[in-house]
């Protein structure tokens, strides 16, 4: 008689809730869905821009709907999470070697943060926000 093999039950839809690392990974994965939907919102903006001022105004009005405002806040939070996780991953995915030495992870991630900060400020300035 062969003993019944032990199979550990893993809940298929909630497995990531029990460990912090899994949970954060899941948040990062889900951020992609919001990024995708926001890309479609931007596509809608481009479409309305091509159609004329009336359609474009309807797009701007759409941005102020409670649903889209809430969606944008959630997406902003998720995309900031994505950015920090992505910058932390970049030195792992693309290590830079100079001579015998690898450039420290922190330096590569730090350079990304710096570039990101400068870029964001320049865009806000060019957009006329300040």
């Amino acid at each position, binding site marked *: 008689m062969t003993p019944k093999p032990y199979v550990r039950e893993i809940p298929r839809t909630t497995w990531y809730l029990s460990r912090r690392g899994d949970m954060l990974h899941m948040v990062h994965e*889900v951020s992609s*869905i919001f*990024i995708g939907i*926001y890309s479609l919102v931007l596509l809608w903006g481009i479409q309305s821009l091509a159609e004329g001022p009336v359609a474009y105004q309807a797009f701007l009005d759409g*941005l*102020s709907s409670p649903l889209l405002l809430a969606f944008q806040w959630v997406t902003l939070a998720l995309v900031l999470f994505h950015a920090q996780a*992505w910058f932390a991953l970049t030195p792992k995915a693309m290590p830079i070697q100079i001579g015998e030495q690898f450039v420290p992870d922190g330096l590569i991630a730090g350079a990304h943060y710096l570039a990101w900060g400068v870029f*964001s400020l320049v865009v*806000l300035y060019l957009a006329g926000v300040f």
Partner: protein
Amino acid sequence: MKSNKPLFWSLFAAGGTVAAFVMPVLLVITLLAGYGMVPEALSYERLHAVAGGWPGKIVLFVIVSLSLWHAAHRMRTALHGLGLRADRAVAIAGYGIAALGTVLSLHYLLAI
């Protein structure tokens, strides 16, 4: 081509970088517009002029299409992780929307 994995992966990686750099500041701008403080650059005349030139078209095209491919690729593992076991359908839907979005963004940008 033996496998289309490298193609989808490079689009995913490029899109992830674009989304990380560009989307936070874009969201700040569209949120301001949503609260009625429409930044100068989002006025119809200004944005139409920007999107009317080639640099503007290329930048907008890259942002929208690469972000869509990033989302499509990662959505597969995201939905698998959430318990959905339908990778083929998810892949077809995701990549399909990304491909359609790419074509549509090109179409609309060329019409501006």
